[in-house]
């Protein structure tokens, strides 16, 4: 069993009878207290997300999880199907496991599959991904009612907030964890 004190984003840990992926980790100094690490962790089997606060420097049991590149193929409503880039083996995951990430899945998109004991348990998207804007309204100069942003629909069908200068057909970079606009893609 490997132990680590470095609780950071992307680390897989064995905790409370499960395997969890750290999706966010942050130092906090509560009131007049010592240093703690507040982590948001996602269960790799159930996709449940919880917060837990560890003492800074506390050792945790690192889980053996391998990340393998894969490609998204299609979904039939309740299951999402992928193909491993190296072995060409296909596998499917339930919609519950995919969770919010489904808004960024479109045919042929590449992501990582997280394998526990050789079995694909979950997927992980790149933190930032480029998408094409399919529809959006033209930006109107000085429009304060919309607060400097407008809705745009990207190729996956997801709608996100973008600055007024973004046009249909533009490629834009999106932060996949909170679906926020980052910049225009080059």
């Amino acid at each position, binding site marked *: 069993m490997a132990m680590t004190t470095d609780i950071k984003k992307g680390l897989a840990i064995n905790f409370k009878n499960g395997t969890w992926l750290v999706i*966010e980790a942050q130092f906090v100094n509560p009131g*007049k*207290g010592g240093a703690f690490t507040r982590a948001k962790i996602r269960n790799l089997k159930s996709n449940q997300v919880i917060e837990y606060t560890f003492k800074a420097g*506390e050792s945790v049991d690192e889980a053996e999880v391998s990340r393998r590149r894969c490609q998204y193929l299609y979904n039939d409503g309740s299951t999402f199907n992928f193909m491993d880039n190296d072995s060409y083996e296909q596998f499917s995951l339930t919609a519950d496991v995919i969770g919010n990430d489904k808004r960024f899945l479109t045919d042929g998109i590449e992501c990582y599959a997280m394998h526990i004991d050789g079995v694909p348990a979950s997927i992980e998207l790149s933190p930032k991904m480029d998408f094409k804007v399919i529809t959006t309204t033209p930006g109107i100069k000085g429009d304060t009612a919309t607060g400097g942003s407008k809705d745009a629909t990207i190729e996956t069908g997801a709608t996100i907030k973008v*600055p007024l200068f973004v046009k249909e057909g533009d490629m834009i970079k999106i*932060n996949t964890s*909170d679906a926020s606009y980052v910049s225009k893609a080059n």
Partner: protein
Amino acid sequence: MIYDKKTAIERNKLTKSLRSFFEKEKFLEVETPIMVRIPGMEPHLNIFETDLIVQNKKTKLFLNHSPELQMKKLLGANFGNIFTLIKTFRNGEIGGDTHNPEFTMLEWYRIKADYKDLMKDCENLVKTLTEKTQITYQNHKIDLKTPWEKLSCEELFQKYCKISLDQNRTFKQLKKTAEEKNFDTNFCKDWDDIFFKIFLNHIEPHLGKEKPTFVYDYPSTQAALAKKSSKNPFFAQRFELYIGGIEIANAFSELTDAKEQKARLIEEQKLRKKLKKTIFDIDGEFLASLESIQHNCAGIALGVDRLFMILMDKKNIDETLLFPLNKILN
């Protein structure tokens, strides 16, 4: 980056209302510095450092993490009721929903007052900011009707964990009791570590969910600048305000005994050394000014971005800021 003018307008309105509250209450607004030679001693905070260079002579300066020392110097100079609205800085605190390394702090001090008077100020301040008696924060209704909920640390540990802090005053006792009740005390090196590990995981997430909650009477070890409770000196006259599970403000009945204060600062300075943090001097002018504070007084620091985040129903502090560092670094 999206620069959201609508939010900026809303925020500007709230800031104006903040000032109007203190004007109505006849507080003097004072400007406190961003760069200081001696910051507050808080043992666990990481502080931004810079150098002032004059004709090749360097002087170390720090970005202030709190205007507390400066405010108390003004109290000592008989300024009466004062407030300041400024940027403060904490290194390493970034990410999550509630941190940006530079943030807006509102601090106010009331003379001839104690921490209970500041609880009333908090209620009245929020009344000035919103006429609503109920708000929705992230799909959760919060009742703003006053008086707000008040729970002591002792009551909270009893309520959520069936643990009495008062009856478990030593590290050994608290560790034993907590472990008997199956609480995680891993890597806790002292009494405060166990307190916080339990508080952060099992108590804090419940706080201020239905209505704003004042958590009061903290263990004295966690209130270096506060007066001890007259009923039980194991606890000190300190409170924190929680709304929607988020810590908004921290207040004390201020300790004005210079001798006691000096002793506590020396302890904290030692602790900073032990934790391998930057060491700075004890501010002699601050200690001297405590002696000339003539009245009982109480002071409070409130995280303005966090309060606005709740009033504007934003999930992440970044959404209340035009230039959040988290987004800029991404």
